């Protein structure tokens, strides 16, 4: 096996795939969005609970491959407690990084988020990792529009 493959399917990623975090009912849903990856059938369902510009709770439920599921699970762990503004910035940064659009310093990212970097060597799988993030971005946009 190439190290690139090793690097994508790290134990941390596999752990998030086997035990995805934060797929649960929220008492209050302030914004939500569903995302599909038509190519491979990945499906993600995201709900946010917000209060005073902060994300107080999040639910991410994924049906899909290891990369998509792990990416959504990792995202759900990280976004909780952030302000909506910070979240939006982080989501955009992660998207740009995964797509390789520009050089982004990731050493200050949480280790779990850094673990997603392995996917960059597998162009067709980048979409899988991106799906939860683009869906989260849409969910937050929906919410801003509703206001």
């Amino acid at each position, binding site marked *: *096996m*190439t190290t*690139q*493959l090793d690097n*994508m*399917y790290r134990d941390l990623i*596999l752990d998030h795939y*086997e035990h995805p975090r934060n797929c649960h009912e929220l008492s209050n849903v302030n914004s939500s969005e569903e995302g599909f990856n038509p*190519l*491979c*059938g*990945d*499906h993600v369902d995201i709900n946010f609970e917000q209060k005073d510009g902060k994300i107080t709770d999040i639910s991410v439920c994924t*049906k*899909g*491959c*290891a*990369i998509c*599921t792990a990416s959504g699970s990792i995202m759900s762990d990280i976004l909780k407690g952030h302000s909506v503004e910070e979240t939006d910035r982080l989501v955009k940064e992660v998207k740009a990084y995964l797509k390789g659009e520009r050089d982004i310093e990731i050493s200050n990212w949480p280790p779990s988020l850094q673990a997603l970097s392995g996917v960059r060597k*597998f162009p*067709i*799988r980048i979409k*899988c990792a991106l799906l939860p993030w683009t869906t989260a971005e849409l969910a937050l946009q929906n919410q801003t529009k509703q206001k």
Partner: protein
Amino acid sequence: MLERFRKDFPVLENNPGLTYLDSAASTQKPAVVLEKMDHFYRFDYANIHRGLYNLSERATASYEAARTRIAEFIGTAVPESLVFTRNATESLNLIAATIGEQIVHKGDEIIVSVMEHHANFVPWQQLAARKDAKLKVVGIDRKTLELDMAALESAITGKTRFVCCTMASNVLGTTPNVAKISKLAKKHGALTVFDAAQFVPHHKLDISTFDPDFLVLSGHKMLAVDGFGVLYGKPEHLAAMPPYMTGGDMIENVTIEKTTYSEPPQKFEAGTPFMGGAISLHAAIDYLENIGLDRIQEHESALAKLADEKLRAIGKVKLYRKPEHIHNGILPFNIEGIHPHDVATILGDMDICVRAGHHCAQPLIHFMGEMAMVRASFYLYNTEKDVDRLIAGIQKTLEVFHK
């Protein structure tokens, strides 16, 4: 057994170490097919049916010779019953948009099987929606993966206008009994549309034995180049159908007020066609028949059964049916707890090409209770070594996922 033919395929020669198990998506091309095409463009090329000079006549003759050869190959003595298209998808859309529009009315029924490729599903679903007609979907037996003939029998009525069915499922390899389907449809006055795209590469086809109304295929799945397909239609249907597209090459007479159309098949071949595609399919058929479709089917089925047996021995692999129901090289499977895309990525990293996903057959994948499947498809150029490499790849996949 067919090992010696492998060297005929430049892509396999130029990619040593490649295990190509995605022929159901598209086959590789033998050198002779590419050479015949190349020769045509170097020696005989001009636009057809137009030029009053020798070169154009030669080009036309080559193009029409392909029609005659393909007709003979599928079992009809009437070359004019073959319309050349871009692919099976276009052929199916042509049927739905012409005779489909003509004969389907409100309250009528169209029957499809649940294992259709989207190409033989969506055009009918959309036609039914446009006409306020009913789309009836016939299932399959979950154990044998064979078409549920009893369900078809109870679904068909005097209101059924079309029965549209694959001749070989691109996901399961299932080959429905087309003679029975055809007979049943005739009894109820329904027309049959058979999707042979996945059948012709692997099985001998003789339409004279079941007399379909329409049948489609795609050249690229049977060693010819991509972008060339065929529609067979019974001459009386083709004669009564309106054109699909209009323009050059399909008219008899055009005045400012009105246009009359050519006879079939020209009526359905508007514009300059893909001549090289026709040449390539002619050459591909010669190549296939030289080996013999019986031998090809036997060879690829044996490989699929061997793979089935070895995957079973690993355990943790879901194989959906018993080996005795394998009739060609198409082998769908899943690994417990590992998504097909991850399987395909890990195999792909080892240069083993398989398909993963819904295979353009979402209703079927759903019916089978899955989100996606892995499919290995074996063809004449695959060997036992390819089976071994697939097994090694699956073992690696299990390792990566600590299973």
